[in-house]
């Protein structure tokens, strides 16, 4: 089972990055940068400023992945699906919203409630970028850093969509010890499915191992490194 990677984008404690730009992410550090609109979008964007922190980092990573693939700009809606793995989901937005429910003499906030689903940022992305495929968040009990990639490969193999923006998004929360924070998204598609140049190929071997250019990857950071190494020769650069 395999697909081509057309772009990668991420937000981590090490900053923003996409393709060969930015530092290799470090998702083990939990202090994420406070994102501003102009960090991601050149044009004024009132909606971005109103998003909750979870939605901001997820939408940012999706935007950067599309930018890396040179598919950020669009005219016709596109058959691209969205899949995001998350552990805590909208928990931070949930806590903030519920405080407005408990506040005496104040109505509950509809603006905050609108972001109390782990899929809200996927809806934002589908609206901004005209994406009409599947949109779902997934969670697994095992700490499986690349489950979203496996799910996306399966969805592409099943013909769920022509392409998938697949990734992971998580914020630390105060309820339990946490080991990772940030967001990483890849634009994946079956060869020839979208009109953009593929950058690297990701493969799932019969034994379940995931590889990019024959490098075994087991973590999100390794995925970014392997992707950069795969695209560096094409640009005559050192990774």
């Amino acid at each position, binding site marked *: 089972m395999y697909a081509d990677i057309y772009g990668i984008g991420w937000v981590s404690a090490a900053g923003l990055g996409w393709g060969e730009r930015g530092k290799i992410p470090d998702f083990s550090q939990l202090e994420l940068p406070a994102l501003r609109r102009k960090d991601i979008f050149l044009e004024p964007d009132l909606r971005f400023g109103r998003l909750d922190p979870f939605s901001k980092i997820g939408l940012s990573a999706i935007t950067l992945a599309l930018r890396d693939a040179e598919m950020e700009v669009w005219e016709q809606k596109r058959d691209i699906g969205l899949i995001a793995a998350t552990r805590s989901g909208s928990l931070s937005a949930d806590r903030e919203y519920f405080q407005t*429910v408990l506040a005496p003499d104040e109505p509950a906030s509809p603006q905050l409630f609108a972001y109390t689903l*782990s899929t809200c940022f996927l809806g934002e992305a589908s*609206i901004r970028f005209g994406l009409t495929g*599947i949109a*779902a968040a997934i*969670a697994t009990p095992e700490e499986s850093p690349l489950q979203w990639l496996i799910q996306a490969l399966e969805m592409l193999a099943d013909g769920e969509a022509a392409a998938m923006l697949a990734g992971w998004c998580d914020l630390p929360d105060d309820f339990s010890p946490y080991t990772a924070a940030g967001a990483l998204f890849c634009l994946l598609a079956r060869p020839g499915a979208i009109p953009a140049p593929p950058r690297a190929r990701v493969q799932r071997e019969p034994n379940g191992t995931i590889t990019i250019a024959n490098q075994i990857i087991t973590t999100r950071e390794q995925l970014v490194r392997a992707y950069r190494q795969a695209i560096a020769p094409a640009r005559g650069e050192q990774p």
Partner: protein
Amino acid sequence: MSHQVAVVAMAVHTAMGDLDTTWQELCAGKSAIAPLQRFDTTNYLTNLAALLPQNSDVSPSHSITLLEHLATDLGVVPSNTMLFGATTKWGIDQLERAGRQLPYDANALYSATLIEQMRRLWPSKGAGEVFAAACASSTLALARASATIAAGRSSSVLVCGVDMCSEFVFSGFSALQGLAPEACRPFCQQRRGLTLGEGAAALLLMDAKRARAEGRPILATIAGWGTASDAHHITAPARDGCGLQLACRKALAKAACDVSDIDAIHAHGTGTVYNDAMEITAFRQLFPESLPLIFGVKGAIGHTLGAAGAIETALSIQCFQNNTLPLTVGVETPMTEAANAITRQTTPFTGTTILKTNSGFGGINAALLFKKSEVVHVR
């Protein structure tokens, strides 16, 4: 080669009771919507919902209790069964307790623990995953389970959808002006919003070949599935129903069916002005000649959020089992655009194909196409 997907067992628990009781009450035109006592509704648009009795103890979370209702009814699953869960706000009562400075179960806050609970109730070595897609969560989980079996990646998948009615969700829909002041009226000209419900459903899907080899009853087959996004608005559906149309067309194509093959539609039918209008618009585009019979159950059991797709799938299969379509509880004056299609009384049904649709926040849409089993199974 694609493997045929069979539904071989199912269990449901709603505010009306188990699957058989829910079906009987539904066909009798009853509703479980009633004034709720669970929390103070003074500041909200309504005091109505369709709820099960709730244990006031911390543990287990009410979400877990809903699952436990299903375990006895469904029975054992094969040890290599994959587990797919579906929910929007699993364990939300525990977040409420934390917010109120009460003792709470922190583990229950994370949706992945739905799989841990499924594994406890249905021991299995198969992999597990929870899907969230707003009010289309369990419809999407059933679609992915079907795709997994069709592709041969597994021969047995248990899909479990569960959601509870919490003040968290109730207050939110009230703040969005989405709740009806009286019981909801799906597809009615006088509809004014939705009524929340809660419940859970578990469906065991299996490769039909394996089911036959093991002598398991095939209650129905899932012949087609499709998911699509409107790419329109974060809370309101696209008025032209573009995403729902696309999801339905994908399901039809997967099933190699034409629209003329559809004998009935079990719609999402929340009772909101925009959702119901969107659905009928989409269906009229899909069925330009004439609409098949359309029904919805949320007027009887409320909107069960992430559990809706699974509960409503089980009830769709009951239509095949009982050769009956239930009436759409809550309709008094059906929408003009679908006046002859909306079921207003329990109706004899000899059809063999039902289309099930659900839609959710973010513009998510999912569709499933069920076919009647060739063999009659007496429950």
